[in-house]
């Protein structure tokens, strides 16, 4: 167990290292260099100043040396300096993480609870109304662009039925602070973005939970449980549900990268001040260090999530041993 944990940890580290190297290669393969970008952004610069900046950023050194410098910087948590905001990238990311975390966790929780809920309920009647609803939901959830759904909700709640805030994380007159009133304010702002982000996954999880539940309900141990005279609800929620959750948990963990992608679009639509919004802003401004920092940070999160999924998987299903 310990050995497999360590080897997984090393694998994860190798993946992160590969992302760092890829980042470096991409920036250097792209036409132009950062100094030209800064010069362009600030509206012209003398060649002497550009040369000075190149020395300052170490861009005049050979590539392998630059890679070494970059690697040691990243290892110390230094992701560089944003050209545009003039702040350390790591600081900006740290500042944006809580908002994204709040959004993503609420959306995934919502999708998980509601999705598995209706999936499991519908498995009791494989051709019932709820099952048909899931079929339609999964088609719509896949086909409707998430940012478009978000914008449509903005139109609905901004002009037709103005009961919910449609932009930002706090009201304009909010003083923040984290008191009760502030929490209610943030929760109100959270409803629409979290709902939008959860839609895709709600559709997927309900379909997955439904088919897993149907599979499990056909197996021998369920028949045994029923034959023992257990009540239907114990059979369903104690015996079957646990097994039916397995595929949902796997997909949930492995899809974390997709959820982050959805968060970029949703945060952009609702002006949610998170990482995705930061990625969007830095892409618009061609602010490479920031966008690369966000990419690296997100990759680390995905690697960690994959490992956590693996662990969760073993906890739910003791049959899965180290392989």
């Amino acid at each position: 167990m310990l050995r497999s944990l360590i080897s997984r940890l090393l694998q994860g580290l190798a993946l992160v290292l590969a992302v760092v190297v890829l980042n470096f290669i991409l920036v250097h393969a792209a036409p132009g260099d950062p100094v030209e970008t800064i010069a362009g952004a600030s509206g012209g610069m003398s060649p002497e100043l550009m040369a000075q900046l190149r020395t300052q950023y170490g861009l005049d050194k050979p590539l392998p040396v630059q890679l070494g410098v970059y690697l040691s910087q990243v290892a110390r948590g230094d992701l560089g300096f944003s050209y545009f905001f003039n702040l350390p990238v790591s600081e900006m990311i740290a500042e944006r993480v809580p908002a994204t975390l709040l959004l993503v966790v609420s959306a995934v929780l919502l999708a998980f609870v509601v999705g598995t809920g209706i999936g499991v309920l519908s498995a009791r009647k494989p051709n019932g109304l709820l099952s048909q609803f899931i079929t339609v939901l999964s088609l719509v959830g896949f086909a409707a662009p998430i940012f478009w759904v978000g914008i449509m909700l903005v139109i609905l709640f901004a002009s037709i039925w103005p009961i919910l805030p449609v932009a930002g994380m706090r009201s304009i007159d909010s003083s923040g602070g984290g008191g009760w009133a502030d929490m209610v304010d943030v929760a109100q702002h959270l409803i629409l973005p979290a709902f939008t982000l959860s839609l895709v996954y709600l559709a997927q999880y309900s379909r997955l939970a439904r088919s897993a539940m149907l599979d499990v309900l056909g197996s021998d141990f369920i028949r045994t449980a029923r034959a023992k005279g257990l009540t239907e609800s114990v059979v369903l929620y104690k015996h079957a549900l646990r097994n039916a959750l397995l595929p949902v948990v796997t997909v949930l963990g492995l899809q974390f990268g997709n959820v982050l992608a959805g968060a970029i679009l949703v945060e952009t639509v609702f002006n949610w001040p998170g990482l995705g919004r930061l990625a969007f802003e830095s892409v618009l401004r061609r602010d490479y260090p920031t966008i690369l920092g966000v990419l690296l940070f997100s990759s680390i999160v995905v690697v960690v999530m994959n490992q956590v999924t693996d662990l969760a998987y073993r906890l739910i299903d003791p049959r899965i041993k180290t392989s």
Partner: protein
Amino acid sequence: MSKSSLALSGAGFRLPKVEHPTVEALRMFARNPSAIVGMVMLLTMLAVAIAGPWILQADPFEIAYAPLTPPFSAEAWLGTDYLGRDVLTTLVYGGRATLLVGAVAATLSVLIGITLGAFAGYYGGRVDAVLMRITEFFQVLPALLFAMVVVTLFSPSLVTVTLAIGIVSWTGTARLTRAEFLKYRVLEFVRAERAIGAGDARIIWKVILPNALPPLIVSATLAVGAAILFEAGLSFLGLGDPNQMSWGLMIGSSRQYVLSCWWAVAFPGMAIFVTVLAVSLIGDGLNDALNPKLRAR
């Protein structure tokens, strides 16, 4: 009863006609109402995207009428956006870029996925280990963010957007292909082929791949839908080709004015929705026709 035994023993006995699997699949597909609906929807979209610009003969970027003309008015059927561009024209022209990028990017991702998956599954061992590490790496990279980085660094154009989408979305196909190859490579007909001296290339492309195709065709269909959504997302974020009208670009550029012209966002979104819906209905239909045993419940 007696009739059939008579027929068996009599001279008129004929083997029942066996349908070619492809014909059978096509017949099953054609009998599936939702697949046909999807097919009609997609063909309509394609026809409009191909023939529409040729009939309209207009510039989608041109200011046609007064800005913010509401839809269903006499001159602009679907209204105009905040600049006065005709939404119907932009919709018809935008379909070209969106569908083209979707189709080419999906083809690219399927080609990469099938090639890497086939090699990994067929050769196994060290080749498999290396290729699977690469696959794992691309699965860890957050696809949209990575595509954003690539497009930003290499300036947005139809080519970079297509390449970026293709590069980030092949991993699913690769895993699927690998699993199919692992399944087939030990089967008797493959061994027989090897025994008569067939080379690796022949076995991979001519012997195993045709057998592994059914699930791959389904996943390729769904890949088209995913690529269209991906393209729309990128152009919504301002990373599409700025010189090519596309549905995502329309949504992205009108986003800030959405409260004064909902139609400029609603219609292109519906177009994306209908197209992706059509593609996934076709995918489901193909799945039922090609993999009857795996039919989704």
